[in-house]
């Protein structure tokens, strides 16, 4: 199990907050591993879409648990 460098707890926050917090965590930290926890129904679509648009790598997408593991672009 890969350990994240940072954990973003976006539970209870509505879109686009989960993606915004993920982007904040990844900013200026190339290659950092960010775990995002979110329960907004849009997060399941928005987090993978953010990864694609920003060139980040989506390592884990657990929609049931509301948990995503993302490697920030660069690094």
């Amino acid at each position, binding site marked *: 199990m890969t350990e994240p460098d940072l954990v973003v707890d976006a539970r209870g926050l*509505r*879109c*686009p907050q989960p*993606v*915004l917090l993920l*982007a*904040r965590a990844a*900013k200026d930290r190339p290659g950092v591993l960010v775990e995002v926890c979110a329960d*907004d*129904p*849009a997060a*399941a*679509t*928005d987090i*993978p*879409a*953010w990864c*694609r*648009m*920003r060139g980040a790598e989506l390592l884990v997408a657990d929609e049931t648990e509301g948990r995503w593991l993302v490697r920030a672009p660069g690094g």
Partner: protein
Amino acid sequence: MAQPSPAGGGPSAGFDSASGMPPSPTTLAALSGAWPAAWADPGRRYPAGREARHVLDTARAAVARAWGADPGTVLFAPDRATAVWWALTGHRGTAPRLVVGATSAADVLRTADVLAGWGAPTTVVPVDPDGRLVEADLVAALAAAGPATVVVEQANLEIGTVADLARIRALSAGHTLVVDQQAVAGREPLRPEWDVAFADARMWGGPPGVTVVAVRDPARFAPAAAPTDGHCGVEATYPPVPLIAAAGLALENPDPGWAALAEVSAHLRATVCARITDCAVVGDPGLGYLTMFTLLYVAADELVDALGRRGWAVASGASCTSDTRRPHHVLVAVGAATHGSLRVSLAPGATRADADRFCDDLVAVVAAGRAAAGAGDL
């Protein structure tokens, strides 16, 4: 024909033509002329009834010409919900087995869901990131036993992706192909690959209350168990003839401005994507008049409201601030970021200059929205 202008603005309100069109002067004149002439029940044998019958037959013939259909197989439903119901349940001989594209309109998916709940085997076929049916999944769904009713769209009204209907027709040989032509009727050429097709007259500037359902072969498909006299027995015996007449006339006089919009849309896409960071075009827009943008870090509803205050009528595919918080199923199906989705659908008359002015406002609104969200530096 430009849509009504906002107070103090140019023709800028007409950026949501996908939600319907205002009546053209021709349609209004047709409606006010047809109402007193054809108010009566077309089933009656006295002169007023015969006149209504004549007006109805004329409109039906006009609509049939547009669809390349036999007039006797063109039906008028009062709304899309009814049209969808007829289309999804009309297969003759066996209980319906449904194969439905994932980006189908919400009313199609809802109806399929109801039928599934009643025991109709139903498969929702996923789409690729462009919004096209995944062929392997379509083939697998069709491989199951028995004839199916396959429900697809000629083009998607949210993202503008145009289906390869020739391919879908070939793959679904022997099945009933139902095609939702809402996005193209009266605007772009209607493809002939369908067994059943439907579209609402409001899309081409007709009045509300008329949804066309065209049927290719009533012997194979009729939206009622036992057809009675004419028109498969489902159409109202006292249909709204004046509305149908106006819808037929509007369809016969399409606005020539639709064809010019592809160039304006292409310009809009290039300009928006060049001027705004973290912006993408969703799907593979082949519809000339429509583009779905996705803009990171802004809530779509706030974007739509801010643009509305600047006089622009546009739509979003998300409801971040609504209680339901359910992202639009089309955006989910193609895997696009849902929160900052913005659908721009041009109406005839929109120019490159309009697109540039819209882009100026969009740049300002997105910058303000991102700054307010603390995303200005992301």
